[in-house]
């Protein structure tokens, strides 16, 4: 079977998808990513906005209803979850073979 063409995900896309397992608006996504990555990944507003736009186009995330009239809230889609899991398995495999060979 051929590998999914969206793999591998970039670090930022991976973290955005991970952050959106629960609904969040843009700034909350930024904060979650910083937290999840132990402060290693800090996304700037312009970069995150473009990434969200792109993930919406790919249908990896979708907008959800919210009380906030100004900020749009998003959540991961089933397709997004599928791709996230595929990339997780890909990295898990890399970690397993590396552990066997290197450590």
């Amino acid at each position, binding site marked *: 079977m051929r590998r999914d063409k969206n793999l591998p995900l970039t670090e*930022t896309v991976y973290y955005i998808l991970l952050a959106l397992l629960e609904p969040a*608006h*843009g*700034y909350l996504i*930024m904060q979650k990513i910083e937290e999840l990555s132990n402060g290693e990944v*800090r*996304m*700037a*507003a*312009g*970069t*995150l*906005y*473009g*990434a969200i736009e792109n993930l919406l186009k790919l249908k990896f995330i979708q907008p959800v209803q919210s009380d906030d009239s*100004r*900020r*749009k809230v998003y959540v991961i889609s089933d397709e997004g979850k599928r791709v996230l899991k595929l990339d997780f398995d890909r990295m898990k495999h890399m970690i397993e073979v590396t552990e066997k060979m290197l450590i």
Partner: protein
Amino acid sequence: MRKFRFYIDFEKEEKWLNKMAKQGWELCGKSFIYEFRKVEPNNTTIKIDYRTFENNRDYEDYLALFKDSGWEHIAGSKYSGTQYFKTVDENGDADIFSDAPSKAARYRRLSNMYLITAISYLPVLIALITTKAIDVSWFLNPKLLYYTPGLWERTGADFWKGFLFETPFAVMRGFALMFFPLLILFYLAFVIKAEKHYKANLKGK
């Protein structure tokens, strides 16, 4: 204070605006010209994004994201394309982009806008030619810009009188002939320039 400038290079434009802020002139509006207001000289960092929006909802959401992350929107509108943000930053290394591809992508959006503008003028040009409002053969033979019958066979004062009388009209016809082709060429030149910046930024120059 008002100033007229034209930039395709966002980095140069940002540099200029930051220099103005250091001298106590902060950008407060941008239409065709830049408008500045007098402020205390400060270490403001101004950054430019390029985006247009289809509806207010999207635009508000966009502005909210920047505001939440510490960037104040100082100039630009839903359709203006260029969006100007400022933040107070002691180190001067704050940015609205955190990677090279997204920083470059604003040039791609700019070049697309110029391309669409250039293409949108083509039907106007074609309409002018097909309705004979302008004639391409004028280009090869400027004498045809003069409509007076037998003008070029006249001699002496008779010729000069007719020639000088019609010259303003001929110039206008010539201008009409050249206007849209030149406009399209200018826009195409902007497309090429913006694309060059896009490629250079993508490589993370």
